[in-house]
């Protein structure tokens, strides 16, 4: 059978290819180049080989930041995905409250990331912030600028507030796309609420949940703006995640070589974990 090949499609794809080349591939190539060289500025580089990679792989500072990052992402996924799903399941499907709920859910997503960080910074201050002052008033000794646990608590709370809505909206869209016929059939069979969720809603939401988990994983693994505005990586290094550590090395210390090597290791970890998530979820879908 002769296959008709339409080469015109390439013309339509070309703008995206160019865009990705300029904002992703060329910067990535540059980072690879930096990672094997040493520079003291003025665009003068000298060959350093694999020195920076060895340094990063043996760096306790990098291991600690990676561990913090993994812990943060795990906490975020464990909270936001079930919470988002539960909220979406309980949102109205018809009537005037639909618009109200959707707008309320969309609001946190519309706020710029640095503004979210600044808002929570003030909101959680122990002397003037509503949250900080309130917690201290009811008897908790809370000061996120001095206590690592309080800093983590605030960071997680801020992220949950900011990003659970995304999971809610994705799940809600997925739920709305399930035809009524499925629910009617379940009703005829006398299915209980849990059975409807387990055998109708959850399977139909698998693709949406895959996307939600991937998006939340990648975003939380790369969190930077909110965290740097809220805690600046402190107290001490308690909330210094990989991206903050990378920024300190690249722009604070201007060590472009080690920062390049760290970026590549960071990128490879994200790529591997994203691929694993995607593959495992698609595999369970096939089963």
């Amino acid at each position: 059978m002769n296959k008709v090949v339409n080469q015109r499609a390439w013309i339509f794809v070309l703008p995206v290819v160019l865009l990705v080349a300029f904002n992703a591939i060329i910067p990535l190539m540059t980072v690879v180049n930096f990672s094997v060289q040493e520079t003291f500025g003025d665009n003068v580089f000298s060959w350093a080989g694999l020195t920076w990679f060895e340094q990063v792989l043996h760096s306790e500072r990098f291991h600690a930041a990676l561990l913090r990052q993994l812990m943060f992402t795990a906490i975020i996924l464990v909270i936001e995905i079930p919470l988002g799903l539960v909220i979406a399941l309980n949102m109205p499907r018809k009537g005037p409250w639909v618009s109200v709920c959707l707008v309320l859910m969309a609001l946190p997503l519309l706020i710029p990331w640095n503004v979210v960080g600044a808002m929570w910074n003030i909101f959680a201050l122990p002397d003037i912030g509503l949250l900080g002052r309130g917690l201290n008033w009811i008897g908790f000794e809370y000061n996120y600028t001095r206590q690592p646990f309080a800093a983590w608590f605030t960071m997680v709370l801020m992220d949950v507030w900011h990003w659970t809505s995304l999971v809610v909206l994705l799940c809600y869209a997925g739920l709305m796309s399930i035809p009524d016929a499925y629910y009617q059939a379940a009703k005829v069979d006398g299915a209980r609420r849990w059975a409807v969720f387990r055998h109708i809603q959850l399977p139909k939401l698998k693709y949406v949940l895959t996307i939600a988990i991937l998006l939340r994983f990648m975003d939380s693994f790369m969190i930077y703006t909110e965290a740097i505005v809220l805690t600046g990586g402190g107290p001490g290094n308690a909330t210094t995640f990989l991206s903050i550590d990378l920024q300190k090395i690249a722009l604070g210390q201007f060590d472009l070589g080690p920062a390049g090597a760290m970026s590549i290791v960071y990128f490879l970890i994200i790529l591997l974990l994203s691929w694993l998530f995607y593959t495992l979820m698609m595999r369970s879908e096939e089963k």
Partner: protein
Amino acid sequence: MEGTSLLSWMAWTWPTAGFFIFVFVCLVAMVAWERLAPGGSPRRGVLGLDTTRGDRLFISLLGSAFIFLIWLGVMGAPLWGGLGISIVFWFAVFRWV
């Protein structure tokens, strides 16, 4: 590699240029291979994954990157041992995954 002024900000070196040329040649070779002998539908390998040739190339490249990193972290430079394991890994992925 000095390069032209347009590219000097990218701080190119011959080894890194060689690496990207290798990746580019891999992609071109995959296109040529598909043209000459179409790979057909995805196949199910030992990992239970449905993979096309492109997927296997991705797995090979990503796996090799981690093999080199682990080798460097555990054994240090040079990377000849890591290269040997990567070649075996590529063969295994294209043959059985």
